[in-house]
């Protein structure tokens, strides 16, 4: 059984590696978006799903990653392969800055601070015209890999896909490490965590920094994919969508973040047509899934798997 799922997973990866050149360009673009969404939701899942610290500011980190990567490339002429991690590190530094108030706040108040952070980032992007060119946005140069320019969605897909797989793998390892177990214990009971000697301050900061790093990395990749960034791609609303991903998928589950990232980022595409109808359906699906799928899609699967056992 365990072998079977391993083989299936391998086959799935292989399919994703081999198929894209034969797929419609639009589908390849969507695959890219899914990868980037999964990256964001995996990061968010670390801080919110595992460590239990509500973060409504993820769009701010994504924005910082995207703008930092772009500006490092265009203004300072840094190579993409340096600018991308640097951008993520800058986002992580911002995460550090947000983690400091999180030491005092919890629940709704923390949600407010992070929400305010994302809103401020968005406004800075609009108003700091000399750096960000405001609402006009910035053109993003395509990354170079040796003599190849990653200027198509197809080429970007291989980059996005490999980074996403790598980062999800890292997240998986973090979860099963000392750090991950500390996150969960903080989420379940701060008091108990403290009693067994977990340094709340340090781990909360780590959670935020990690989440921001994932967000920033996703932002840099997004910028390179769409080749043009402007503040409206990083509105506070996006933060809500990211939270939706981990809720719909199932919080505190790596698979949940993946499923959530994939489905929620596809949702607007499936609901094409009039934009108003699309938003309406999005809201409705979200409310309905919150009410009827309290543990997300992953919870739904788990229920099916566990239910029929007799004698338990």
């Amino acid at each position, binding site marked *: 059984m365990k072998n079977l799922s391993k083989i299936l997973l391998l086959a799935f990866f292989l399919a994703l590696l081999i198929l894209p050149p034969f797929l419609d360009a639009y589908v390849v673009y969507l695959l890219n978006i899914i990868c980037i969404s999964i990256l964001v939701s995996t990061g968010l899942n670390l801080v919110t799903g595992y460590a239990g610290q509500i973060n409504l500011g993820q769009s701010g980190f994504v924005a910082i990653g995207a703008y930092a990567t772009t500006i490092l490339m265009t203004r300072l002429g840094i190579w993409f392969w340096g600018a991308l991690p640097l951008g993520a590190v800058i986002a992580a530094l911002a995460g550090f800055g947000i983690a400091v108030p999180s030491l005092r706040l*919890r629940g709704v*108040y923390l949600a407010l601070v992070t929400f305010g952070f994302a809103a*401020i980032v968005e406004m800075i992007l609009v108003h700091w015209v000399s750096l960000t060119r405001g609402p006009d946005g910035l053109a993003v140069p395509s990354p170079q890999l040796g003599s190849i320019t990653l200027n198509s969605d197809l080429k970007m897909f291989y980059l996005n896909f490999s980074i996403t797989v790598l980062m999800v793998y890292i997240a998986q390892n973090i979860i099963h490490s000392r750090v991950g177990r500390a996150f969960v214990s903080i989420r379940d009971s701060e008091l108990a965590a403290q009693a067994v000697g977990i340094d709340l301050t340090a781990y909360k900061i780590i959670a935020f920094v990690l989440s921001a790093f994932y967000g920033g990395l996703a932002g840099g990749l997004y910028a390179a994919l769409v080749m043009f960034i402007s503040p409206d791609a990083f509105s506070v609303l996006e933060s809500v969508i990211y939270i939706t991903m981990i809720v719909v998928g199932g*919080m505190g589950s790596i698979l949940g973040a993946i499923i959530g990232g994939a489905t929620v980022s596809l949702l607007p595409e499936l609901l094409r047509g009039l934009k108003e109808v699309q*938003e309406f359906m999005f809201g409705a699906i*979200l*409310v309905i899934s919150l*009410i009827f799928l*309290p543990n997300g899609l992953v919870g739904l699967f788990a229920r099916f798997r566990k239910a029929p056992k007799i004698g338990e």
Partner: protein
Amino acid sequence: MILQILVSGLTSGAIYALIALGFVLIYKSTEIVNFAQGELVMIGAYFALLYASFHMPYYFIFLFAAISAFIVGILINNLVCRPLIKAQHLSVVIATFALSFLIRSLIRLIWGSQYYSFASPFAEKTYKFGDLVISPQNFWITVISLIIMLIFYLFFKFTKTGKSMFATAQNQEAASLMGISISKVFMLIWGISSGLAAISGILLSPISAISPYMGIIAIKAFAAAVLGGFNSLPGAVIGGFLLGIIENISAIYISSAYKDILAFLVLIVVLVFKPAGILGTETIRRA
């Protein structure tokens, strides 16, 4: 000059205060932060627009719009919040976000994205008190808001329903042991705070255009509520007026471009340095 700034600050402050009251009312009793509060403001304005198209007198428009919003609030409670009563906290917060999506897109489906204006029922002539010039709009907005707040206060202080709502906010368990129906109170609370939001939307509509995006104002009211203390009703009022005044002062002495950021700066500074706000009680324990 400074007096003039204060007075115009009071007008926007009055609106913030009304919306902030709605936020605090819901939070205090149900512990939900209603992120759809801005959309309820917008709904009020659109209801007013709808009833105005029937050529009703202003006070009827006002009354009907407020009652309609009251019903919307109750619907939200019954259809969304009640099923989620045992869910995780985050789920409910996200549900209100989703609601704001829903309401905004519904309004755009019906009325489109264009801006509507709403004829002002008040006289055109400005009032003058010495050097002070007040437009009748601003004057009446402030006066009506103050009257609503007074009614609100009297309701909580002297009616049985009001008292039971207050008791629920203070201690749910004890209140239900005293025979108060918590679910009825929650319903009323959603109705009332939705009504309050709608009233501020109606008052706002003659001075700002009616559009699906007018709910943005709730973010500022939110900052106001935090400034005053998120679990204090008088705090919401004080925070509202204070934010209105701070905003107007900074618009004149610093720059009006940063007026919108200011609300968030206030929000973060208050949350970081004094999370309980001006009048709120400290419920946030140090970790």
